[in-house]
């Protein structure tokens, strides 16, 4: 399978495994559509996501818009190639999206 989305056991926290592109962005979209109805941060562990394209970025931005200030999208430990795309598309520069390393989750 190209993309797997696993619950981590924490509330509103998921781990993305594989490659996210236009062929499977809908899978992530379905998960996030459900979560954005509630308020609070949504955490996505990206340490095993090896690829993201503009349609994956689009899903993240849409979830951010739908949260509309009721929480942040927290992107945890992106791989270097995914981090590069997040930076190029300005996601690291937004108040409603937080990109964090593995040790930074304890802070509020």
């Amino acid at each position, binding site marked *: 399978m*190209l993309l797997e989305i696993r619950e981590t056991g924490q509330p509103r926290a998921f781990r993305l495994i594989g*490659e996210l*592109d*236009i*062929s499977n962005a809908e899978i992530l979209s379905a998960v996030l559509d459900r979560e954005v109805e509630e308020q609070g941060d949504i955490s996505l562990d990206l340490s095993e996501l090896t*690829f993201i*394209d*503009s*349609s994956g*970025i*689009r899903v993240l*931005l*849409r979830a951010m*818009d739908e949260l509309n200030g009721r929480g942040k999208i927290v992107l945890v430990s992106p791989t270097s*190639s995914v981090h*590069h*795309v997040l930076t*190029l*598309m300005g996601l690291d520069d937004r108040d409603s999206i937080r990109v964090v390393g593995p040790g930074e989750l304890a802070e509020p």
Partner: protein
Amino acid sequence: MVRTFPARRAILREIRQFIRQQARAHALLDEAESLALAVTEACANAMIHTNCTKIGVTWKATRDRVEIEVEDDGIFRRRVPVPEVDGGGGHRGIPLMMALLDQVSISGGTVSRPGTRVRLVKYRES
């Protein structure tokens, strides 16, 4: 090196594997993921914006650059994306390709001469 792929979204990963393989074979390890992403965007655009059935990907690496051509057998639907209509989140594929690579050029197919062609160039770091 030319490979032809069916124009299906599920094939994008296979197209990326082809690009990564070529990048490795031509000592372009640092550029592999940027090239794979740019080609993914070009192929996804072909699938979204044309009626194509297949996509040809040509790889050419020289001493100072890599040139990749993505050619489909479709006709580009000529229409300008409008954020108010299409949503603000989309249509970032071409700016993303331009951010990743050194040259991006696109020529649209016509009814008499179908085939949209995207030419992507990345210079080797000297």
